[in-house]
């Protein structure tokens, strides 16, 4: 009983709930902004990587390699604590948004590249011989086919970014984890942390299932 009182104190959970919800809304806003920004930047980066003039391509490759190798936490701390030394100051939200979407963009670019290269050359040729300019063919013919392959890993990466929003608590952004930690300190009880963990799980577990389903469906389609 004492264990439940310590780790799952209903009274404390109820009292901390509104605070956790405020943290959750920050987390969700950060996650959504990072995912949208990172995904679009990633698609753009991938098109540059594939079709820009050679020197620009190499820049894209360098970017992609670098940000796939750099830990998000290191990047975040660089942005938040190091940039001010050269006079560039971002709020904790903007710092986290930049760090998350810069890294997501690098991963998305690779995923999109695999998706586009998975479309047979014949499809590019058929679009071209019908007189479609390259970008029109890209939009009407190639990307819609690539999307099917891209969606599962893209969703997977988005889940990872959602989880990594918790790193924002390191730069004092009042996200779900930070709020839970503060409440824990305030109420001298770990229940809010358990509450936060349960909220993360409840939100992300269905998404994990969706990825599993999409992957299985793609596999079935490929067999056909």
């Amino acid at each position, binding site marked *: 009983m004492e264990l439940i009182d310590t780790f799952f104190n209903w009274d404390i959970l109820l009292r901390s709930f509104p605070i956790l919800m405020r943290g959750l809304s920050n987390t969700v806003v950060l996650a959504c902004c990072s995912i949208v920004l990172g995904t679009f930047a990633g698609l753009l980066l991938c098109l540059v990587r594939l079709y820009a003039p050679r020197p620009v391509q190499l820049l894209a490759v360098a970017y992609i390699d670098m940000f796939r190798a750099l830990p998000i936490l290191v990047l975040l701390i660089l942005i938040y604590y190091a940039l001010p030394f050269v006079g560039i100051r971002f709020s904790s939200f903007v710092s986290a948004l930049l760090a998350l979407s810069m890294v997501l963009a690098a991963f998305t670019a690779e995923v999109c590249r695999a998706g586009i290269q998975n479309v*047979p050359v*014949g*499809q590019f*040729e*058929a*679009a*071209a*011989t*019908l*007189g*479609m*300019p390259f970008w*029109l063919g890209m939009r*009407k*013919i190639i990307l*819609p*086919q690539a999307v099917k392959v891209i969606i599962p890993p893209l969703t997977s990466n988005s889940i990872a970014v959602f989880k990594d929003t918790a790193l924002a608590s390191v730069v004092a952004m009042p996200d779900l984890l930070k709020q839970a930690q503060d409440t824990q300190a305030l109420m001298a009880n770990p229940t809010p942390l358990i509450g936060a963990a349960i909220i993360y799980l409840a939100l992300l577990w269905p998404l994990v299932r969706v990825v599993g389903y999409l992957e299985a469906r793609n596999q079935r389609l490929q067999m*056909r």
Partner: protein
Amino acid sequence: MTAAHPHVIDRNSPPVVSMTGINKWYGSYHALRDIDLDVASGERIVLCGPSGSGKSTLIRTINQLETHASGTLRVNGQELTPGMKKLDVVRQDVGMVFQHFNLFPHLTILENCTVAPISVRKVPKREAEERAMHYLERVKIAEQARKYPFQLSGGQQQRAAISRSLCMVPKIMLFDEPTSALDPEMVREVLETMIGLADEGMTMMVVTHEMGFAREVADRVIFMDAGEIKEVAAPDAFFANPKEPRARAFLNQIMH
């Protein structure tokens, strides 16, 4: 000459395709050697030759899926140069049918036929659909219009691909071995569609090993070997008495 399928070859207008001194290399491999060829409006040409002789390369050069290294290429009066800006516009008038159909798998047969007319030629959707249904009827698969490519047989897919090209109302149709990926019982239906096209006066260049088709509709048979045009002749003359020893050997081989 081709009594079964009489038609008009317009030799007074400028040629639809005009190649002079075309050369092409893949790395150090000389794939096209000094190709000279004019195709008149309404003319049907069959290209044949052993595997690797450059038939696909030649036909794909015409719409610049392969670029040439030297020589002059004119299509519908427009000179094509590697990296030119207006290439898309020239391609609108050059239909191409591939060995493996290359239908768009995420679109229905009808959408396959309307996507380019709507987005490239700016034909209103309704009109584009009417036109598509017209051509789908002509290739006898109108009832498949709402299906996706994978739901059709190979022969039906190839006929859908032909009608997709026709919907752009091209001035010339290029075919690169349109029946060689098909099961034997489906070859006939595709060839009949192509013969129908020829009867209506379409200018056609066809890479094929179907010598029956060549005999029936070709005005000229072109025999290629090692990147060169070795022989150009009317089909009767070519099949009865090929001048080139390589052509004779080739014919012996494909006629068993």
